[in-house]
Every structure is written in structure tokens, then in C-alpha cells.
């Protein structure tokens, strides 16, 4: 497998081999699905739209609908205004969404389509909304696209009515699975916090099978909620790459205080999430959550000898990888290779700081890397475990290392979108997966005489 890998160490300097990221529009499409009654629309040629729907369908194993401006040569030469106007008309006539969320592609960006003007010149039915985000594929990554669409929700919809601020917190959950969003909401509910979450893909991409197909499932943040988020007291923006832009925009537009946090993956980030909820909403942390936290500590002690001191390579989206790295350190593991495909110097700074504090000096950190880089590092000095998306499976096989699947996309396993990795329950799940991967490995490698019942 992956036999193209050179035997000797080589650095490649141009282009990407085996990418660890993908393009903006798919992130925008995913974010759009977190608005209730929203139909994502891809302004460009239709292949992109098909790929994004396919990729999201494979990860979530649920239907993902989106329309396309279906550019052909004409639109690419003369601009896509006619296509977008026709699209807006057709979308509301045929599919009747509450909101149409338009994102651009590299094609419409390159020809310079002025989407906001086109939207203004289109006929949008009374009470319906068309929002848009610019998502050029040649800048940033899918995370950037997610962030841009979240920001568009604020700029198009959020409003401050000028009155008293409501005792309510906005939660911008970041690029995570519906299972994670559900867990973040559960924690806030346990604490009795009044909140609005958006985007919110629970009950959209994890909806039940009823033999009825709902084009617009019951989940998603409603337009009314997103509007009203401008009257909230504070916003917890989870994940610098995926949520901060929207949080800051809301602060600037409506004066809602933005509190940037990590996505609550791992003990420390979950503590911070809960403390931020407590402090902003002025509530107490219920004993149920204290018990959950205690269970995590208990489990860490029960299992620490399975993984302590093991070297691990972790890759994925920056907002996932940063708190995940922190948790791996908490577990006593050594994240020696930390990589993301998404650009951003802050990634290297933040992870570098954490690893310094943990005294892990022999390590490699890279933003905007690819899986070729990661495999080269692993060839140079092997690790015990790989944590990342499904694409890590090639390295896992070639280098004979167990892989724990975390992040987006996971295309070769099921159920994961419903199972949280955030909160204390998420900690338990990560510990379980990591411990078991290493124990399975030990079982597989052990000689008959060393094969143990109790481990």
C-alpha cells in the first residue's frame, strides 16, 4: 500500500500528496444544514455539489440535499447572475425552504460573481431568506467554509432589539458531529442554562428512520432563534477556526460578549466549557456533572497503564486537534506528531506551547501539512498510535499502527456521528477507543504463552 512512498526521507515542497483537508464549500454546506428548513445552494458547476453531498452522506450516513447553479460554459464566460436568479426562483418554487444558504465555489469566485448584489436583485418570497458566504476553494479549508457560513448567519440574520439583554447564552459549537452538539446541549440543559445553539445539526443529520422522508427534518436552529441571538448576554464560540469569526461578528454587530473557548474535547476543555456556562449564566454546576467528571478521573486511573508514555500521532481539523492533543497529554501520552491540513500559524503556536509545558521536546508540528508529510515523519520514528480521520488508514496499514478514528471525515465506520467525543462522556469514549485499540494490538501481537485473559 502507498508504495509510492520513497524509502529515503524526502520533503515535498509543492502541491499536496494525500491531503489532510478539503475545500471550503463542503464546510459551508454542513453549517447550512444546521439551520432549520434550510436548503444549501452551491453557486458554481454541479460536480462540486455532488461531491460535497456524497462526502457528507458517507460521513453521516444520512441524506444531504443541496441545489446547484449548474454552471456551464456560458455562465463561466458571462457570469452566473442569470443562473443564481433562476436558482433562487426554482428553489423556492420547488423545494420551499425557509432559508436558502448560498455558498460560492472556486469557479464563481474566480469569475468574480458578486453574489450579494445578485441576491438583492432576485425575488425572494415574503418571509423567506437567502443568505450567502464566499467560500473560495483555493483559500483555507473546509473549516474556513464552515466558519464563513456561520458568520453569514450572524451578518444576515442576528439582530439586537436594543432592549434588556436576555439571560441567555449563545453556543457556537464548531465543526463537530450532531452527537457532539447534542452532548453540549445536554450539559447546558443539565446546568439549567438558557441557550441558543447554531448551527445545530441534531435531528437533521442524525434523524430517526420513520419510513417518511422529511426534506426539512425537525432539527436545526430556527431563523427566529438566530435573529434573537443578538439579544443574548454572551456567546461561547467553540473553536477558533470554526466559530470565532461568527462570535466576533456578533459582538461587533449586536454587542454580545464573545467568549472564545476550545471545542470541549477532553477534561480541561470540558471543565472550561462548564465553567464558562456557569460564570456567564450565573448557575451552579449540578452534582450530576461532578459525578461524570469523577467517573472520567476514575477511568483514567483504571486505564492509565494501557497508554501512558505511548507515542501518538494526531491529525485532523485544528479545532479538534488542539484540545485532543491537550487530552492526550492529560492521559499521559506523548503526542509527538501533530498535524492539520488547514492553514493557520496559531495552530503551531498553540500545540507547541502545550507540548513544551508537557516537556515533549522531540516532536513535529505542522499546519497546512498533508498525510505524505505525516507518513514520512512516522517512517523516521515510529509511533504507537495514530488518531485522525479515515484517511489515516493508509498510513496505519503501511506502517502497521493502530488507528483511532476521530474527526471529519470518517467514511469507513458507522455510528460515530451519534457518539460524542465532547464533554465528560466524550472523554470516556476517547479513553475507551484509545485503550482498546492498544489492547487489541497487544492481543494481536502477543505470543500464545503471553496471551492474557485479564489485561
Amino acid at each position, binding site marked *: 500500500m502507498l508504495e509510492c512512498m520513497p524509502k529515503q526521507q524526502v520533503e*515535498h515542497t509543492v502541491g499536496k500528496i494525500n491531503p489532510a483537508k478539503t475545500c471550503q464549500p463542503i464546510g459551508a454546506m454542513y453549517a447550512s444544514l444546521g439551520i432549520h428548513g434550510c436548503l444549501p445552494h452551491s453557486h458554481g458547476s454541479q460536480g462540486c455539489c455532488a461531491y460535497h453531498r456524497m462526502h457528507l452522506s458517507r460521513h453521516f450516513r444520512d441524506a444531504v440535499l443541496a441545489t446547484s447553479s449548474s454552471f456551464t460554459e456560458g455562465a463561466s464566460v458571462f457570469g452566473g447572475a442569470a443562473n443564481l436568479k433562476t436558482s433562487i426562483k426554482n428553489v423556492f418554487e420547488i423545494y420551499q425552504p425557509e432559508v436558502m444558504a448560498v455558498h460560492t465555489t472556486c469557479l464563481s469566485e*474566480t469569475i468574480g460573481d458578486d453574489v450579494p448584489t445578485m441576491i438583492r436583485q432576485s425575488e425572494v418570497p415574503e418571509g423567506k431568506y437567502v443568505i450567502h458566504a464566499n467560500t473560495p476553494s483555493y483559500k483555507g479549508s473546509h473549516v474556513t467554509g464552515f466558519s464563513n457560513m456561520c458568520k453569514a448567519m450572524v451578518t444576515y440574520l442576528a439582530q439586537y432589539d436594543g432592549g434588556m439583554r436576555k439571560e441567555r447564552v449563545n453556543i457556537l459549537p464548531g465543526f463537530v458531529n450532531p452527537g457532539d452538539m447534542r452532548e453540549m446541549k445536554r450539559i447546558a440543559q443539565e446546568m439549567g442554562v438558557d441557550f441558543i445553539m447554531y448551527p445545530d445539526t441534531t435531528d437533521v443529520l442524525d434523524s430517526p428512520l420513520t419510513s417518511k422522508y422529511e426534506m426539512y427534518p425537525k432539527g436545526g436552529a430556527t431563523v427566529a432563534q438566530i435573529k434573537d441571538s443578538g439579544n443574548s448576554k454572551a456567546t461561547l464560540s467553540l473553536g477558533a477556526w470554526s466559530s470565532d469569526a461568527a462570535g466576533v461578528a456578533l459582538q461587533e454587530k449586536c454587542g454580545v460578549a464573545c467568549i472564545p473557548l476550545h471545542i470541549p474535547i477532553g477534561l480541561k476543555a470540558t471543565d472550561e466549557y462548564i465553567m464558562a456556562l456557569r460564570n456567564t449564566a450565573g448557575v451552579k454546576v449540578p452534582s450530576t456533572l461532578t459525578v461524570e467528571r469523577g467517573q472520567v478521573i476514575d477511568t483514567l486511573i483504571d486505564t492509565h497503564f494501557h497508554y501512558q508514555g505511548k507515542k501518538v500521532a494526531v491529525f485532523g481539523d485544528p479545532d479538534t486537534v488542539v484540545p485532543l492533543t491537550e487530552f492526550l497529554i492529560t492521559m499521559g501520552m506523548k503526542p509527538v506528531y501533530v498535524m492539520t491540513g488547514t492553514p493557520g500559524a496559531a495552530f503551531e503556536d498553540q500545540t507547541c506551547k502545550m507540548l513544551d509545558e508537557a516537556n515533549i521536546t522531540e516532536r513535529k508540528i505542522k499546519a497546512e501539512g498533508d498525510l505524505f508529510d505525516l507518513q514520512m515523519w512516522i517512517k523516521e520514528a515510529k509511533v504507537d498510535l495514530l488518531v485522525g480521520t479515515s484517511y489515516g488508514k493508509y498510513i496505519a496499514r503501511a506502517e502497521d499502527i493502530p488507528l483511532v478514528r476521530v474527526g471529519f471525515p470518517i467514511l469507513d465506520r458507522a455510528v460515530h456521528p451519534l457518539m460524542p467525543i465532547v464533554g465528560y462522556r466524550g472523554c470516556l469514549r476517547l479513553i475507551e477507543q484509545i485503550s482498546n485499540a492498544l489492547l487489541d494490538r497487544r492481543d494481536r501481537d502477543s505470543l500464545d504463552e503471553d496471551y492474557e485473559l485479564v489485561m
Partner: protein
Amino acid sequence: MYTNYEPGDRTAPIEERQGSIVVKGKGRTKVSCGNDSLAGAVSQRACVYCGARVVLNPVTDAVHLVHGPIGCATYTWDIRGSLSSGSDMYRNSFSTDMREKDVIFGGETKLAECIDEVVTRHRPSAVFVYSTCVVGVIGDDIVAVCREASSRHGIDIIPVESTGFISGNKIVGYRAAAEALLRLIRPKEGEEVERTNKVNFLGEYNLGGEKWIVEKYLREIGVEINVAFTGDSSVEALKRAPGAKLNLVQCTGSMHWLAAQMEKEFGTPLLDVNFFGSENIADSLRRIAAFYGDPEIARKAEALIERETARLMPHIERYREKLQGKRAAIYVGGAFKAMAIVRQLKELGVEVVVAGTQTGRPEEYEALSGLLDEGTVIVDDTNPAEIERFLLEKKIDVMAGGVKERVLAYKLGIGFIDHNHDRKDALAGYEGALRFAREVYVTTCSPVWMYLREAKPSRELV
């Protein structure tokens, strides 16, 4: 009772799409097809680049370098179920990862650098360079860059002109791929390709080892495969293609043009074959034997057909008992695949009541229609809203299609068979036919359906 569409019925929720849906035996017979998809419609179609990529990707020892922003490469990274007996180079994903700077100042320099690095470090036997939407717009001359790089490195560096927006139809991409292949296999001046008695196998992608299955049959009857286009092929083997005696064409959508071109340039005759389902396999083997006009080949073919059919049929019979009277919908990429599935489902006692493709041509729809019963809905470039309507109104029990149809069918409580280009279980040959039958049974008769809140009458455990 299920709904019978009458002539003039609004079968499509979108006016512009009425012509793309016909009901067999209800007056109108011609499906309107090959049109661009409607702006603002949900389409299941992909793009030109996608078409080119799926055809060329199985060339195992080539580097497939995508010139464009990262997405096009990521989404097509190892999405083919094509197996290799040699190199795994094709399963890596190479991209020039165009950035804003490249879009503004042009990406030719970066492409050239990327090719240089890839060629010197990975030593592929050839490089296919795919153009994407942005490249088409900014006008990078990939043909010139490839030509120069080719002479610099002394290997084939083949441009694939697959800019996405040229058409919303994958077929245009198939053509781009065919042109690239022709460029690769056409003997250079002074080169001589050895003439053989072997066959090329066009439109065979070795999904789950399907080429190997057919190769086994052909070898048994005394016919050798020269090279398949493009399943489990190498650049070196492809270059021997002009020396074949005959071109077998399986996936007509992707390969018919190339076969016709090869007939013109190299004088290689072509024969349509299909190795999906026992009827098609027998038919194909007999036609190949007839082409060779060798009684020994014919005798061996008959012996093989008899032996394998006798082995397969009891199983098919067993599944037919469970599946008799179930109703199916088909929506796949091309008409070739649709026809193969119709025949197999019929053999299993399953009634096909909806059939459609993303890229069918008029003559293909006519052939498809010939296999279908009166009242069957025939549809081109459909969308989820229509699929939902057909599935419910026609009381479908099982659907065959790709990943986007899968999730939709499941949500409606309907079984599903994956016949996508990324599957890794072979469906060709007699063993593939058995696997297909088993898959239809497993999904249609899953015990899970009984636990649906509103279980349908047909959902009984068998």
C-alpha cells in the same frame, strides 16, 4: 394498487423536467436526455472531471495529478473499487493545491514544478494531469506544460482536459479520458506494436476483481486478454493495445467512442459484451466464440456456460422464492449498468418499475425500454424529490443506485443495493451474480424493516 401515470400527467414536480420522465407504453416513448441540469435543482449528477477521473483512475502505475484547488483531489482520492495486481500508485492523491496566488498569476509554473517533483521522487510510468474548473477559467495551458515536461523527463505526461463546467454531464469527461488514453496508446513514429490474437477489454474497471473473473472465463475458452481499459492496467500494457485482434466493449458510455476510434486508427473491430447476470454472460461468451469462428472455443464456451449455470441456478431459485413479486427501482450512472441490473432482477423474480440513468443517450434509453414492462417509469437525470415520489407511489421494495440514493431509500424504509463505481465486491461473472442475488435478498428481506413504526404490509420476515 400503484399509481399508473397517464399521458399528460405531471410526473415531475418541475415543469421543465416533464420530458425527462416517460412511462413505457403510454404514447410518449422518447426520453428527453443529455440536457444540462436545471439551475436550482437538486441533481444526482457529477461533473466532467469526475467522469474523466473514474475512467482513468484504475491505471495502476500512473500518478494522477489534479491541477486545481484541493477539493477535486480529496473527493476522488481512492474512490474507485478497482483492484490492482501490481502497483498501488493510483491509490494516492496528488494535487497542485492551487491557492489564491496561483489563481491570480496563473498556475502553470506550480504545475510544472509539481510534475518535476513527482516524476523525480516517485518515478511513475506516466502522469495524467487533470484540469479542473479554475484551471479552465484562468486558462492555464496544461497541454503545453505537459508537452514540455514530457520531453524534459522522457515519460508520458498526459493532459486530461476535464474542466468541470464544460458540461454538467459526466459523458464529456469520459470523452476527455478516452482522448487521453488514445494519446497514450497511439504508437509514436517508428514504433511497431506486435499484432496478437488477444482481446482488449474496454469499459472494465476491475471493481472487486471483476476483470480477473472474466479473464478466468476467457482463458478457459482459449481467449487471452491483452489489456483492460482501464481495470488493473499498467501504462506499458496499455501501449500494447493497438496490437489486439478485437475490442470487447462493456461499459459503453465510457468506452464506445474510444473503441470506434481504435477501429478507425488501428483497424481493431469491436464487440459489445456484458458480464453481469447469467443471461448476459452466456450471450457474451457465445458472441466472442462466434467472432473467433473456432469450434473448439465455441465448445469450451458452451461447456463453461452449462457448468456454471447449473451451479448458479439452484441458488438463484432459492432467492427467487423469497423475492418473487418484489418491486424495484434503478437509478445509476449509465444505461449499460441499468440494463444489466434489470436483467438480473428479473431473473430473481423482482419487477423493475422505475429505471433511470444520469447519462443515458437516446439509443440507450430505447434499448433499456425494450427490457422493461409496460407502465415502467423511465427517467433521465432525476432528483431526490422525484425519486421519493417514485419510490412511494410505485411501492418500491428495493432500489439499486449509488451513495446519494442509498441514504434516501433507507430513510423511506426501502432496501438498497450499491452498484456504485467505488464498491469493492465483484458483481460480474457467475460468482458476482450470486453475490448480487444475495445482496438483493439481504436488504429487501432484512428483519429490521419489521420494526419500523409503520411497517408496510410487504415487510414480512421471510
